[in-house]
């Protein structure tokens, strides 16, 4: 900053006197950091608005920004209504139980759970839980496997064909198989987790495994030979070698893989939920589509924006984790 200003002779004295340099500078920074993206969004909204009014569908006009905003408000209102109903339901139960207890001291109070329909926010919650379970499961498999294939060229040669073939498979192809296998293996009268959840989770896992696996493997295989020699001279045990040398040096590559995996997982999840009828955002979109009311397109558009925004947040969260665990604080991680 000072170097840049030094070229403009008349500013320097002003700066020295007023020290208002920071104010002007900050305004500039703010305009750059916020104003420009804001302008971009505004232009997008305008184009969207103009385009929407020209697209006629069987369910009415394609929703413009203001319709979508209304639908979003509607979904939020529904959520609170539903919560109020649930509260009222529990309160009634409690009152009834209290009354019974007063009559008969031996009465054992029972609380039945409220079984209203899930609200939009419940569905977001379900989606997040499903995607994170699938992603964690995928990482638990991919990172250790990636380390092994990275360490051993033989294992790598053995696994590589399998990886290359399964990597491009779409979730839509996996899902029927997963569904059948889960139905066959996961039998219980009172399942604590619904089958639709397991199906979606496993599909997500199968599709998001590969980037982490491949990147971990490449990262591990490219550890500096000097560090490997250090490990040899010290005769580190296999586990110490992995923990002290392999993991830290391949952290950047592992995270590159994890971030790719998570974004794939999130994309796959929506499709998986549609087909598996897991009560998350995917099912929301599907139900609205089947519903075909005049509000449906607007509500689907709310879901589209939500999905995009959550995907973005998930990546940011991974980025902060990566920054927190990375030993190279100077590295430009973005």
């Amino acid at each position, binding site marked *: 900053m000072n170097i840049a200003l030094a070229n403009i002779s008349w500013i320097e004295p002003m700066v020295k006197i007023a020290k208002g340099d920071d104010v002007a500078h900050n305004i500039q920074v703010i305009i750059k950091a916020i104003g420009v993206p804001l302008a971009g969004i505004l232009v997008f909204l305008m184009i969207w608005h103009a385009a929407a009014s020209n697209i006629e569908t069987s369910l009415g006009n394609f929703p413009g920004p203001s319709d979508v905003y209304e639908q979003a408000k509607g979904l939020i209102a529904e959520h609170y209504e539903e919560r109020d109903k649930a509260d009222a339901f529990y309160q009634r139960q409690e009152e009834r139980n209290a009354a019974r207890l007063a009559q008969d001291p031996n009465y054992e109070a029972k609380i039945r759970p409220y079984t209203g329909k899930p609200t939009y926010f419940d569905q977001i919650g379900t989606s997040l839980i499903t995607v994170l379970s699938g992603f964690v499961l995928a990482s638990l498999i991919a990172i250790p496997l990636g380390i092994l294939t990275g360490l051993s060229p033989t294992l790598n040669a053995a696994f590589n064909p399998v990886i290359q073939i399964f990597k491009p498979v779409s979730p839509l192809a996996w899902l029927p198989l997963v569904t059948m296998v889960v139905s066959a293996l996961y039998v219980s009268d009172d399942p604590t987790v619904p089958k639709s959840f397991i199906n979606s989770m496993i599909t997500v896992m199968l599709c998001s495994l590969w980037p982490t696996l491949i990147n971990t493997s490449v990262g591990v295989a490219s550890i500096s030979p000097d560090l490997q020699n250090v490990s040899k*001279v010290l005769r580190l045990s296999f586990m110490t070698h992995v923990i*002290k040398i392999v993991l830290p040096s391949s952290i950047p590559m592992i995270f590159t893989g994890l971030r790719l995996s998570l974004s794939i997982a999130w994309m796959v999840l929506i499709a998986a939920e549609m087909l598996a009828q897991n009560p998350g955002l995917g099912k929301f979109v599907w139900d609205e589509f089947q519903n075909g009311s005049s509000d449906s397109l607007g509500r689907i558009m709310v879901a589209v924006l939500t999905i995009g925004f959550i995907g973005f947040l998930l990546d940011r969260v991974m980025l902060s984790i990566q920054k927190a665990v990375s*030993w190279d604080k100077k590295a430009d991680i973005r």
Partner: protein
Amino acid sequence: MSVILDITSCGIEFQTPKGSFRALRDVNLKIKKGEYISLIGHSGCGKSTVLNIVAGLLQATEGGVVLNGKEVNEPGPERAVVFQNHSLLPWLTAYQNVELAVKTVFQGKKSKAEMKEWIEHNLHLVHMDHAMHKRPDEISGGMKQRVGIARALAMEPDVLLMDEPFGALDALTRAHLQDSLMEIQKELNNTVIMITHDVDEAVLLSDRIVMMTNGPAATIGEILDIELERPRNRLELADDPRYNHYRSQVLQFLYEKQKKVEHIADARKAKGDAKTKVA
């Protein structure tokens, strides 16, 4: 004094995509306990290869190395290596780098407190007390090399192997480190094999200078005994006729007897090859 390290008719042939390449033949060297040996020779002649065979990082195709009566066939901490490019783990501090070595070598032999003291003692030896909790990217090249030396010394090796330990440093820093090393050597009297390109460094530090012929199929050309009493002082030695005599003998070997005939471009290429392959 007794022979601690015995290299007997050692040779090595590398299998390369273009066929086999004989790098070394018939290398014979007996090293006594507490001796300081320098290996000197033109780039690409096979100095690192000799060192790596002693370290156990490479396997000789014929002959072998015997240390303390036992044959060497894998790397181990009793033959600590100081690598040319320090090879510190960048995610650990200087202290933790030495700690990793101390913990693996003295597991079950030293208590926690003793280990801590030993780590600090070794960092003190190389004058790194002030920066021992800094990471490699926060300290200078010379300091990194000091930590690398501390790590190797902390293993209490039977032989200390150093591959151009000061090669990447500027002249002034190098002189500082050479002085530090002589001080340490006075105290510990380690057995050392050091590769160098620097004739002054070789004469100043060594008891014997081992001069290697040019490759391929390089071997030991001449061995020069340096009979200068210790402690040695670089300023006093500069005017010492014996010092200058040793110096000129090494120079004569390198630039008359083993004059490099290949072009500079080839030499560069060979050096590049060596770097990537040896590692």
